[in-house]
């Protein structure tokens, strides 16, 4: 493989599910092979992050062992999963554990996985050897003995992410304990331990108006800690102010120069730089960007089922109706109105013509449940990030064309932005 092939291969295998079609060519490559099933083991959290989207948490809500067992029985039962998550349609499964802070309930997570293995073995279930565990944590409980024991047991099939917001100043401004103290110091120790002992590579960073000017310093800091995969995005919410797109563009240019000067592209990944964004989309491609229209399943602490945790009351800010689609005793309710609503949503139905035929449509993302929360209608696309996406596209044009030149690659990142957009961002 030459350099650019290696860079492209690194892009293709950021997540376990991305590589599955190539590991298992006997399945139809057009199909999504894995189902993402989330257990909300607790709504409790030991931090009080200022920007947390889980704004209606019940800090006392914890999944009981009985509920957890019944949930495992339900997901392994083809009848109960109906057409929504049957194992013959999805031969692979990602078991995700969410909170609140999931590590508060690490013993329960261990219990769920023990029972999952026990039942899958008993049923000779295909998911027995085809599953991955996914946990995103705030890292503050990392050194607890039961957490360490769990990590050692499952480390070979565990995909971990510890949330860290760049440097200490940025992190401690938002990710605080109930007493107001920042959590950076312990999280940094956790990240270093996880890199050394548990193959931790990635973290997720979210940028909004306040931390936007720190992108070009925050991301290099994360690389200096030893992380190599940075999944970063800007928020979908209506928070962007005049000039934020220009700040974003300038920060990305500084970051691009740092990546190029230090040859980070050889081993590192920053999702903000993506070769496939900023291109027009085929009008026949109506694939939904967000998986929250039926590709995922979330099980709440009380055993009720949802298409994603963002449709649960604890994530909804505007007192919208929860999109409950079943529960662990009945399974998925196939006659449920929400399933019908979500299954009829695609890129075309929710987009205006301007969005649908946008010349830089690829890579522009959205969250279905945010649409529900914001507009009371999941089939109504929010466009608050439009100008931020355009800034990202222009920065990608700069980054990729400079990279091709540096690597002597005969390729071009085509720019489809209007002259007006380019002038606005460059000024």
């Amino acid at each position, binding site marked *: *493989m030459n350099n650019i092939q290696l860079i492209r291969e690194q892009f293709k295998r950021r997540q376990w599910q991305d590589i599955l079609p190539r590991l298992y060519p006997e399945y139809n490559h057009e199909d999504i092979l894995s189902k993402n099933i989330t257990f909300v083991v607790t709504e409790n959290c030991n931090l009080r992050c200022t920007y947390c989207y889980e704004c209606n948490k019940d800090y006392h809500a914890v999944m009981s062992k009985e509920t957890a067992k019944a949930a495992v029985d339900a997901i392994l039962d083809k009848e109960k999963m109906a057409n929504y998550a049957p194992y013959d349609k999805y031969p692979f499964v990602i078991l995700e554990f969410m909170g609140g802070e999931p590590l508060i309930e690490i013993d329960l997570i261990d219990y769920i996985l*023990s029972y999952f293995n*026990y039942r899958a073995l008993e049923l000779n279930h295909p998911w027995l050897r085809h599953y991955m565990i996914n946990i995103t944590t705030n890292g503050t409980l990392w050194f607890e003995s039961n957490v360490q024991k769990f990590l050692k*047991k499952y480390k070979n*099939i565990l995909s971990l992410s510890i949330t860290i917001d760049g440097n200490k100043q940025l992190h401690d401004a938002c990710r605080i304990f109930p007493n107001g103290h920042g959590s950076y110091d312990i999280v940094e120790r956790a990240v270093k331990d996880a890199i050394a002992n548990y193959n931790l590579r990635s973290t997720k960073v979210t940028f909004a108006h306040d931390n936007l000017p720190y992108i070009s310093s925050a991301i290099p800091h994360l690389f200096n800690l030893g992380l190599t995969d940075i999944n970063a995005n800007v928020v979908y919410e209506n928070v962007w102010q005049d000039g934020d797109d220009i700040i974003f563009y300038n920060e990305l240019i500084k970051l691009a120069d740092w990546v190029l000067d230090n040859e980070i592209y050889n081993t590192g990944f920053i999702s903000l730089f993506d070769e496939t964004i900023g291109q027009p989309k085929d009008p026949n491609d109506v694939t939904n960007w967000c998986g929250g229209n039926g590709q995922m399943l979330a099980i709440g602490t009380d055993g009720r089922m949802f298409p994603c945790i963002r449709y649960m009351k604890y994530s909804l800010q505007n007192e919208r109706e929860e999109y409950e689609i079943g529960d662990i005793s009945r399974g998925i309710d196939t006659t449920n109105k929400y399933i019908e609503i979500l299954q009829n949503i695609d890129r075309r139905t929710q987009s205006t013509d301007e969005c649908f035929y946008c010349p830089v449509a690829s890579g522009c993302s959205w969250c279905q449940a945010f649409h529900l929360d914001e507009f009371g209608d999941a089939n109504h696309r929010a466009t608050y990030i439009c100008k931020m996406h355009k800034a990202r596209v222009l920065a990608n044009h700069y980054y990729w064309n400079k990279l091709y030149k540096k690597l002597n690659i005969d390729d071009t990142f085509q720019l489809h932005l209007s002259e007006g957009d380019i002038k606005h961002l460059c000024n």
Partner: protein
Amino acid sequence: MQLVPVSSEEGYYLERTWDELQALKTLIIEFTCESDFVPNAERYEQMMTYYVEAYAAYHIAWQYLLNKYGLQESDIKQFNFTSQSFEIIK
């Protein structure tokens, strides 16, 4: 570091056997240590059979690649699944 690349089909096949072995290794750890759930003798035997099969599949794939590319076990630092290459110890 010297790299010895393999074909993408070979790389993916090795990765597939490796992934399946990791899942079954975790299962063995689960049920040969203290666990809240204990499989019956028949299931326990079945689990061991799956593990041996997965172990054999991985090692057959590994040995096949060593032989094909003329490598010695002691020469190899690791197989890099991203670059689909053996990393060779100098």
